[in-house]
């Protein structure tokens, strides 16, 4: 596959990048805004995510229905998501719709924020909060982030609470938008069968008039609180356990070693936690992920077990962490994990939608483009010692722990 990287910058600071793959059957485009719940003040908790919904509600020249209708009329596969630190709007279409897609996405980035839409959509957000309330695993994630990062902006909830969303005012949202959606804080990304010159022209047509202003973010490093919290809820059937330890940030060169560590210790099958917990059926789920963030990072482990085996499961997981810090991985584990990660990246990379976030986030976090083949080389260059080093430096075995389920003590 012959991929070509292209970039351009508008005078107001908006950056445009593309990984052009002439052999692809489709193209995808996204606007990556470097903003999320960590950039919120407590009185507008949940505004990043609520605003993401409102961006689909129309512009001065489009109604909400126009936005939806136009996406569907292009046969687009489209959506948006909000995390603690990014808000991303994206769509994939057949290449002939490139200009139409950019016209729509670009226009959406300057929303009308109409009051009647705001009031209706508030109910949708409240329902979304209720929807996650019925998912113990999500509740564990949200509360664990809050505990581990207590006192740091990464502790902020993405959805906010029923109370904070109910109390939210349109003016507060408008103010947040005006602080965060400056062109210098927005990245336009294209992947797949992109025609780059018209791509840049169209983005310029849509975005060049946006006024530019300074946007800041606090990115203090944070070691985590290493606290232990038991949330008893008898409506929950099983015990859901979350463990979080510090890990390299999205800017850190040891991130490949961290990814290997998470795969070896906690991939869903064939990992140390799999053999220690799932293979003998002590837990039905035990998996670890590495989450690189802006100036911080986390190893995040989820375990789900019968309540009467939860204490045992937690003990075993922590013993596995300790053992991995002491011994490090075997050569066989290194080989298998590298092949697993490389194969998964290759498969994802064959679809424009699969490459979009990878290409976008490489730029958001490090202002760099790394071709997939180079990334795989960097992964294969990681040594056993580097993997051991990364878990020792970040003290994998002293996590913040949070459990949710029927148990009151653990």
């Amino acid at each position, binding site marked *: *596959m012959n991929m070509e990287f292209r970039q351009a910058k508008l005078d107001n600071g908006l950056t445009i990048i593309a990984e052009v793959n002439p*052999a*692809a*059957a*489709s193209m995808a485009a996204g606007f990556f805004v470097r903003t999320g719940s960590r950039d919120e003040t407590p009185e507008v908790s949940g505004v990043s995510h609520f605003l993401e919904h409102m961006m*689909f509600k129309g512009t001065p020249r489009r109604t909400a229905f126009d*936005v*939806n*209708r136009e*996406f*569907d*009329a*292009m*046969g*687009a*596969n489209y959506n948006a998501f909000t995390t603690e630190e990014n808000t991303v709007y994206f769509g*994939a*279409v*057949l290449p002939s719709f490139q200009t139409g897609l950019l016209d729509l996405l670009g226009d959406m980035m300057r929303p009308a924020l109409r009051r009647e839409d705001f009031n*209706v959509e*508030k*109910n*949708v*957000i409240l*329902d*979304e909060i*209720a*929807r996650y*309330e*019925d*998912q*113990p695993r999500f509740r564990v994630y949200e509360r664990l982030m809050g505990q581990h990062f207590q006192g740091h902006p990464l502790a902020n909830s993405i959805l906010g609470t029923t109370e904070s969303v109910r109390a939210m005012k349109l003016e507060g949202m408008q103010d947040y938008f005006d602080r965060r959606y400056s062109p210098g804080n927005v990245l336009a990304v294209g992947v797949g069968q992109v025609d780059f010159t018209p791509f840049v022209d169209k983005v310029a047509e849509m975005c060049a008039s946006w006024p530019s202003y300074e946007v800041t973010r606090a990115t203090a490093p944070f070691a985590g609180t290493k606290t232990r919290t038991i949330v008893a809820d008898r*409506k*929950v*059937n*099983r015990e*859901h356990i979350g463990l979080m330890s510090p890990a390299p940030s999205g800017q850190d060169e040891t991130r490949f070693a961290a990814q290997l560590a998470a795969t070896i210790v906690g991939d869903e099958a*064939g990992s140390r936690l799999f053999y220690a917990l*799932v*293979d003998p*059926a002590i837990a*039905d*789920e035990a998996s670890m992920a590495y989450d690189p963030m802006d100036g911080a990072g986390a190893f995040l482990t989820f375990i*789900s*077990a*019968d309540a009467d085996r939860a204490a045992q499961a937690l003990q075993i997981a922590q013993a596995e962490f300790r053992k991995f810090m002491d011994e490090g991985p075997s050569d*066989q584990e290194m080989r*298998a*994990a590298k*092949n*697993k990660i*490389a*194969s*998964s990246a*290759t*498969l994802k990379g*064959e*679809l*424009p*939608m699969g490459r979009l976030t990878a290409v976008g986030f490489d730029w958001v976090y490090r202002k760099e483009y790394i071709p997939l083949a180079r990334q795989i080389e960097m992964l294969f260059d990681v040594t056993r010692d580097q993997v051991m080093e990364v878990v020792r430096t970040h003290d994998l075995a002293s996590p913040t722990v949070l459990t949710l389920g029927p148990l009151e003590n653990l």
Partner: protein
Amino acid sequence: MAEKFFIKELPNGLTLLGQQMEHVASAAMTFVVPAGSAHDHSEAAGSAAVACEWVLRGAGDRSTRQLNEALDSLGCQHDENVQSEHLAFSAAQLGRNLADVLAIYADIILRPRLEDATFEPCRELTLQDLSSLEDEPARKCMLMLREKFYPYPLGRCVYGTAESLRALTAQTVRKHLAAHFSARGSILSIAGNIDWNAFCDLAETFFGPWPSRPQKPPKAVPNAPGVTHEKKESAQTHIALAYRTVPISDRRYYAARMAETVLSGGMSSRLFTEVREKRGLAYHVSTRYHSLKKHAGLFTYAGTRPDVAQQTFDVTLHELRRLVEGIEPDEMDRARTQLKSALVMQGESTPSRSSALAGDWYHLRRLRSLQELSDAIDKVTVDEVLGYLREFPPEDFTVLVVGPENIDTHQAYGA
């Protein structure tokens, strides 16, 4: 672009399918075996689910650990899935590793160890899967709906019941495997960066000796429509309803898919517009087509706050019924574009393609090209969709409500 399809049946009845794709390094494989959960004896419900775990616990010369190591070292991304009619094994990797992966799957399918010592954890994990459903009310709601909707036992929950799982023995599950792991009735499909002739030679070597067993479809007893309320102190009320449609092999299939897309294809679809956009009743509302070989349904789900559950149900039901009254030309156009665009995008993915090949063969005994699908979608007229809707009207619903309180559903049942 014209696809390169390949079809071959081995003398023992195993069907091999292939599609060669340009510009990809990966090759995906789908292996479906006619040992799905509908074949479980009712007192041994859950056998297929336990079997699906168990066959991965060591096979041929390899222990569980060696098996995982071998697949991982080949960069094999695999998944095992229990369905009503089949166990489905899928594996995606670089094309150059396909041959080695196939050799391992020959062990998994033909020579699983099925040791007594590994049986207990597999049964235990299935019991835990069952109990996990209590913490996933949306999923539980859809599984229960499927069970009530399809003729029994075609939609039965694949995990069985706590009683049936506790009663299960290693011997029962071994019998399930012996009876239903059969060359005839199984389909092995590959798509991507493949060498078809080399693959056929290997498949013949590995699977040529695999015997066939007589396969008969499970006896299915129709379910009556009706309402079930599962009381649960959940934050949302989960509402699901299903009604009958045509299976994939029916000539009205494309009309049914167009109806589904107008109702729920994108954010401009009727359900999304009326339930979420105009009224803010639910974050998620959707209708999905699902087909078994001879039975199919349109399944609608909405998760909603309990105080507006009744209104959500009423608006949803109204939209399902209103479709029969007419469809605007621009709605038809959007639905066509959406369905065709999705085809092209899925056509770029090797796992989607290998799974689509196996699906086509199972349902139709032939493979459909992108062109054929696209032409068929182009040809459907509004009158055909409305004609289909009159033959298969949104009536006789099976309804499932999981939540703190029930809702009034009497209007779902005729005048």
